[in-house]
């Protein structure tokens, strides 16, 4: 490959780092439960919640932090969260049942996303708040409530298509939510169904990393709420969704170096950095770079709670320029957020065993086959580039077959999955590892709890889907149990 190794080391905070420092336990776990194996850290979730709460506190805002359930289907994480004061936003019948079963009372649950009748019925039946995407959904809900004599349901209106004044901020069209241009008939419907639906506020979720777009939407919501109040409705909350992001990488310099080298690889001025010369959306046209880099901004200095803080400090240009937080506070509105990925920062990892290490060509990348498929570690699917941590099976010395002098120098590898598919690459990127891995070693993909752990995992092809364990610390020792067996009482009671 030439040049210095282009590592993309994961950012490891103390809890995750501490777990990775116990490779013996992680090897024992994968020996017992198979590879791949997901480990979740419930206590970290509670810590992350506190970070969000402190942002609310510093702006004097009240309201709820709703964990976006779809980001991880773990019971342990959900039950740990149920033991805090957080809420959960559920996007399916199954998730709603899971949340109720984990101990969330209806007042702490919001039902969002596309809904089928069963989902809508159980939501209304149990009095959870329903975030409605369209007028049609409101009509459907109203019919259900009347027909089945259900209690009056608290609703949020999810909106989209906000327009900024002065500067037109282009936004990707969303297929979710009602365009604010259609507000009038929507509010008329709300008034018409006032006997069965109680408007508690409005919501938006924009799929973007841009603060300005989100600020525009939040300002738009404030204007809509004012319109609601002028009609005599009594809304009191804005739900701004999530999308606050995770900073995955430890080192900005590594990320900057890597992306520059990737650019040069695409332009052909250095050897490829990916399997088959894949450009992650970039291409070269007559020596000029075209296309857009389709990667998650893996090094993001402003992510998670800090992102929320910056958004709230953003001035509301069309409302006199005071910060959005001040606007919310002065208008006496609650702020609801739905962070999924950001709340799961540092909350888990995926362990995979090395099955085979094969030399392909002299000096070229090694082919490393793992006992996992791409869907089990869906970093690639989300465009997150991050190195796995190598956990040698035999940390004291290398096996005889490997020889004395191999396994000490950095190597380049391609990580293949265990499916019989050419496309089953754990990552299309050529990965630099600090040393040559050996069969039996574990590759630990850190920080996969948010979307990357089980969102894309399936049972197709009869390959095992990762088991999941919950791990926590008691004193200096790491304890664990199967995900399904974790309850917030487990750590003190001791399941083992």
């Amino acid at each position, binding site marked *: 490959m030439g040049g210095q190794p282009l590592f993309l080391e994961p950012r490891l905070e103390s809890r995750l780092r501490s777990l990775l420092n116990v490779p013996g336990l992680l090897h024992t776990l994968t020996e017992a439960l198979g590879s791949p194996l997901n480990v979740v850290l419930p206590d970290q979730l509670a810590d992350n919640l506190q970070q969000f709460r402190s942002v609310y506190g510093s702006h*004097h805002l*009240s309201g709820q932090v709703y964990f976006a359930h779809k980001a991880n289907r773990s019971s342990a994480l959900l039950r740990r969260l149920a033991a805090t004061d957080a809420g959960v936003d559920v996007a399916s019948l199954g998730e709603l049942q899971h949340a109720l079963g984990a101990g969330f009372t209806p007042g702490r649950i919001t039902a969002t996303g596309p809904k089928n009748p069963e989902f809508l019925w159980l939501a209304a039946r149990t009095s959870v708040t329903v975030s409605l995407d369209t007028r049609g959904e409101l009509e459907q809900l109203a019919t259900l409530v009347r027909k089945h004599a259900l209690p009056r349901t608290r609703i949020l209106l999810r909106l989209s298509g906000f327009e900024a004044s*002065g*500067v*037109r*901020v*282009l*936004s*990707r069209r969303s297929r979710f939510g009602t365009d604010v241009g259609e507000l009038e008939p929507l509010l008329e419907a709300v008034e018409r169904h006032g006997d069965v639906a109680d408007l508690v506020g409005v919501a938006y979720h924009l*799929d*973007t*990393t*841009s*603060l*300005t*777009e989100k600020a525009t939407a939040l300002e738009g919501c*404030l204007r809509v709420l*004012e319109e609601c*109040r*002028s009609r005599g409705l009594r809304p009191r909350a804005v739900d701004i969704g999530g*999308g606050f*992001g995770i900073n995955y990488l430890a080192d*900005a310099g590594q990320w*900057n170096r890597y*992306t*520059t080298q990737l*650019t040069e690889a695409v*332009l052909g001025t250095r050897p490829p950095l990916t399997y088959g010369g894949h450009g992650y*959306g970039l291409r070269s046209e007559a*020596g*000029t*770079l*075209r296309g*857009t880099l*389709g*990667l*998650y*901004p893996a090094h993001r200095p402003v992510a998670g709670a800090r992102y929320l803080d910056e958004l709230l400090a953003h001035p509301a240009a069309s*409302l*006199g320029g*005071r910060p959005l937080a*001040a*606007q919310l*506070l*002065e*208008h*006496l509105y609650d702020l609801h957020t739905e962070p999924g*990925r950001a709340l799961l920062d540092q909350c888990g990892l995926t362990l995979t065993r090395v099955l085979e290490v094969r030399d392909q060509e002299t000096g070229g990348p090694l082919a490393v086959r793992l006992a996992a498929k791409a869907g089990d570690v869906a970093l690639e*699917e*989300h*465009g997150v580039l991050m190195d796995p941590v190598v956990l040698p099976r035999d940390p004291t010395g290398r096996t005889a077959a490997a020889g004395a002098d191999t396994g000490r120098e950095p190597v380049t590898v391609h990580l293949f999955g265990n499916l019989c598919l050419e496309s089953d690459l754990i990552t299309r990127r050529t990965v630099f590892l600090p040393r040559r891995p050996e069969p039996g070693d574990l590759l630990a993909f850190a920080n996969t709890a948010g979307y990357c752990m089980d969102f894309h995992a399936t049972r197709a092809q009869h390959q095992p889907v990762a088991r999941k364990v919950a791990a926590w610390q008691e004193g200096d020792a790491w304890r664990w149990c199967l995900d399904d067996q974790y309850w917030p009482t487990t750590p003190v009671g001791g399941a083992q």
Partner: protein
Amino acid sequence: MRYDSITEAIGNTPLVRIDPAVHGLRHIDLYAKLELLNPFGSVKDRAAWNMARPHLAAAAGEGGQVVELSSGNTAKALAVLAGMHGLTFKSVTNRMRIPEIKDLLLLLGAEIEELPGQSECLDPTVTDDPLTQFHRALSEPGSTFLHTDQYFNPRNTEAHFTGTGPEIVKDLDGRAPDWFIACVGTAGSSTGVARALREHDPAVRVAGLVAAKSDFIPGIRTIDEAHEVGLFDPGTYDTIEAVGADEAIEGMLTLNRRCGILAGPTGGAAYFGAVRQLRPIDEELAERDDEEGAERQSAVFIVCDRVESYLSYVRQRRPDLFGRPRRRNSPADLSDAEVRTAPAIGVADAQKWIATGEPLVVDLRSPYAYAALHIDGSVNIVDELFEELLHGGLPFSRSRPVLLACPVGEKSARHAALLTRMGHPDVRSLTGGVIAWRDAGAPLVRD
């Protein structure tokens, strides 16, 4: 100097020698090409005029619109030129991060479209990114857009090949400088000037400056972004170095304060990069001087635009530069103890007091929030304005009791403490603020 049109004032900018006492180079004469003195304020006036000029008359006849992907100076120049020719101008960008420039463009009648941020949930199949849509719209049959296409248009480079470059040679008495240092934005000025200078003297060395990847310097691209520019050819530059935002601001301050050149951060980056590039050369020349006698070299950098548009950019990074003297009667002067012990009153007592004591109720929230819901009979003086009023003294009579209300009772406590210190005998802060008032079920009105 008499002109028939402002466009005739484009170009022929001064070349000013930087005092060696400022940069400390003993064997190199360093010159600044003052592009900030172009009529619309920047080096981009040349390119904008050269690119638009041949098409403006035709476009005006068709009632068209000039469009460009620009975050600043090119947009500014094109907006003026379009307006002068009866056209409208639209800038499409994802890089416009300087609020003053945005406002100035709106003032000049420009339409601005901001491209959306990166997707948080990656969709590798997405095909309708706004930039693609932009180019699709431009190429639709029958469209009347005049797209100046600054990143690919050879007339951008040409403006500097025929203008900026030869002007430098002329002002150096027919000699090309030994060094030319330029920031890389569209690469138009650096490429055009470099070509003109090298045609005169192939030995001219050209240093390109890019922004450090983690930093943002207006008008300069990072090395990756430079590759997206059609006019950018790495072969133009003998070296390409990165400059950080702090360095750019330092350079800018030197030009502003010590040279009287009101350059913006881009010019600052060019000055900083130039001195950093030339210092080791100067030391070599000094050593040779001792052995073989004097040899002088010359170097030129470009000052792209002016400082005034970047005040918020600088304030964000260097708040220390904006320290102002403290004013009297400021809430910032209060001790924590004073705020803690500020006279306050709970919601129930406040309701009674309003009924009997007729205090003046001052709501410190924004007018929008006040208009939505407020305590009946209250007046609205937004806290920023209230603070401003207090610098001049008490804004109401000592004989009238005052109840201050804010969202949670924090700001009102500070102001109650301050008013007490200023000698008001009966001022109180509403404990828990308007939120406590609402939560207690006390009435709020809109009127």
